[in-house]
């Protein structure tokens, strides 16, 4: 829906190949890059027009605030205080006085302009290398005014990509389970929000228990577990139309669904008579295929991005461990061998790592390991946390964390957290209600 109205109109100038500044993305946020985000300039007439439509005093500053917040949250950038800016936004956008920006120690500068043209929002922006005194990137696009937040995210993605060499993850959404009520009578609803917590929307009413929503990496479909009519089954939901349907006709519980990387299949567990195995269902021809056949619990399957392998959780060794197999179920290999239990393996969109939850000596960890099980790194320790989901560029993990209750059983809460792959930049992701089971969408544009 939104996508249809958003199109990049023209690229003003070709991207220059060289740059003196570069963000070191291998070390986390030890020395975030100082960047100045000049408010996007706007003429009085455009300002008035937007004010009527979107009820914001100055849409130019609002959009640059989004960019600033995104870059700051990434941990890789240090957006400088605007009070120190010497040059006015409109003049800076024409030709920055690099000495001024150098003076406040900015290494990069973002400038731009917003105009109201034919009932549409037109934005142009430029990224400047302050040290070299050169323009690094210039783009302009036009969209419907209601898309103004997405404009901020797209600008961030472009700036991030130009300065880090990696794709961004800002024009994305998170689907999750919103939680309310006492721990023994929790009400759960599907909810969706922009990656920065804005535009939150509930997708179900809370009449039935819903769990583990996951995005289709290729479109706006979601698969999740619903206890509709007390029959726990995997469902498919189109978040644009609101259409829901049950996936497959299984006589027992289906759960732990995920899409294949091409979005054409759902892989999930099917439990019957005390045994859970992994199955796939082709969404086009509805053919169901059995992938594992073992008396142990086999669950939490996740495909490698090339679709050739599946990692999953099994207790066939006696306890929960992580295994990898070919996508047809052959060549099953255990890859986790540390003390304690391992669960929720999720293959990185880059293909090289598997994120997981580990329980060791009464504490829960989110960690990553290579796909052969070597190089395990635990990123964060807590009383309870699980279910990591990768940002589409494979850089950040989002997961949920639950608190320990007090002696009266009070004080329970569940919240979303994110952490950089390096283990730095752990952050609470603000949500309107309590939240769990987050899943990150692909980039909405391009």
């Amino acid at each position, binding site marked *: 829906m939104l996508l249809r109205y958003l199109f990049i109109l023209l690229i003003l100038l070709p991207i220059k190949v060289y740059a003196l500044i570069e963000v070191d993305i291998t070390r986390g946020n030890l020395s975030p890059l100082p960047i100045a985000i000049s408010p996007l300039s706007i003429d009085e007439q455009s300002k008035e027009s937007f004010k009527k439509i979107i009820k914001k005093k100055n849409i130019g500053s609002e959009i640059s605030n989004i960019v600033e917040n995104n870059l700051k949250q990434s941990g890789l950038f240090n957006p400088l205080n605007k009070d120190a800016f010497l040059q006015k936004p409109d003049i800076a956008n024409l030709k920055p006085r690099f000495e001024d920006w150098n003076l406040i120690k900015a290494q990069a500068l973002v400038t731009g302009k917003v105009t109201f043209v034919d009932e549409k929002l037109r934005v142009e922006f430029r990224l400047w290398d302050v040290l070299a005194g050169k323009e690094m990137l210039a783009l302009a696009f036009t969209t419907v005014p209601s898309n103004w937040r997405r404009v901020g995210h797209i600008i961030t993605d472009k700036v991030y990509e130009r300065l880090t060499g990696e794709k961004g993850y800002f024009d994305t959404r998170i689907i999750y389970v919103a939680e309310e009520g006492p*721990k023994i009578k929790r009400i759960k609803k599907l909810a969706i929000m922009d990656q920065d917590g804005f535009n939150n929307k509930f997708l179900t009413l809370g009449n039935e228990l819903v769990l583990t929503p996951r995005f289709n990496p290729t479109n706006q479909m979601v698969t999740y577990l619903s206890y509709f009519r007390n029959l726990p089954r995997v469902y498919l939901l189109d978040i644009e139309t609101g259409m829901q349907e049950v996936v497959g006709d299984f006589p027992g519980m289906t759960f732990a669904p995920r899409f294949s990387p091409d979005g054409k299949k759902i892989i999930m567990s099917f439990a019957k008579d*005390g045994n859970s195995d992994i199955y796939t269902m082709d969404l086009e021809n509805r053919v169901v295929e059995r992938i594992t056949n073992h008396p142990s619990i086999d669950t939490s399957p996740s495909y490698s991005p090339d679709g050739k392998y599946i990692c999953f959780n099994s207790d066939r060794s006696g306890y929960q461990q992580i295994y990898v197999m070919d996508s047809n179920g052959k060549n099953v290999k255990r890859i986790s061998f540390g003390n304690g239990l391992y669960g929720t393996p999720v293959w990185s969109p880059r293909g090289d790592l598997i994120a997981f939850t580990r329980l060791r000596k009464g504490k829960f960890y989110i960690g990553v390991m290579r796909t052969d099980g070597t190089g395990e790194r635990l990123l964060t320790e807590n009383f309870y946390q699980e*279910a990591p989901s990768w940002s589409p560029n494979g850089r950040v993990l989002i997961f949920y964390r639950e608190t320990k209750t007090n002696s009266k059983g009070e004080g329970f809460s569940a919240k979303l957290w994110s952490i950089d792959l390096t283990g730095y930049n752990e952050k609470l992701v603000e949500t309107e209600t309590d939240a769990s089971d987050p899943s990150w969408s692909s980039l909405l544009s391009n």
Partner: protein
Amino acid sequence: MNLNKILKNIFLVLAASLVLTACATQKKTGQTQGDVYTGTDSVEYLASGVKDRVFFATNETVLTTASRDTLRKQAGWLRKNSKINVVLEGHADERGTREYNLALGERRANAAKDYLMTYGISSNRISVISYGKERPVDSGSTPLSWSKNRRSVTIKAN
């Protein structure tokens, strides 16, 4: 030789004190054995003298002696009340990942179902549902609370 004797004595004393501490801790909580809940305050009754639930050890689906006793009583009651069908709800505690716990709850409820079936209750009178860790009865974050939540509950379906 002397040393051997001394060591033996030390061992005996140690063993005795272990037994004593074991007794002491069990007396103190009085509600778990191993880590299986043995108390009654979260238990309800299907009928007089027939408990509605059985409890499990962490990560286990094995029925304890007490659980088998409870299930035999349930089977006896179900044989006498042949028009009643039941739902077995399997649950896990909060100390495990959500998806694995769904599978674990399903396995626990099926362990109970299998036992009822060996005592003559037809499988078509029993349906099974797993709630994983979604429906705790005790909201505490203590081993005792968790032991109450690792359970299979037999509920009248009609």
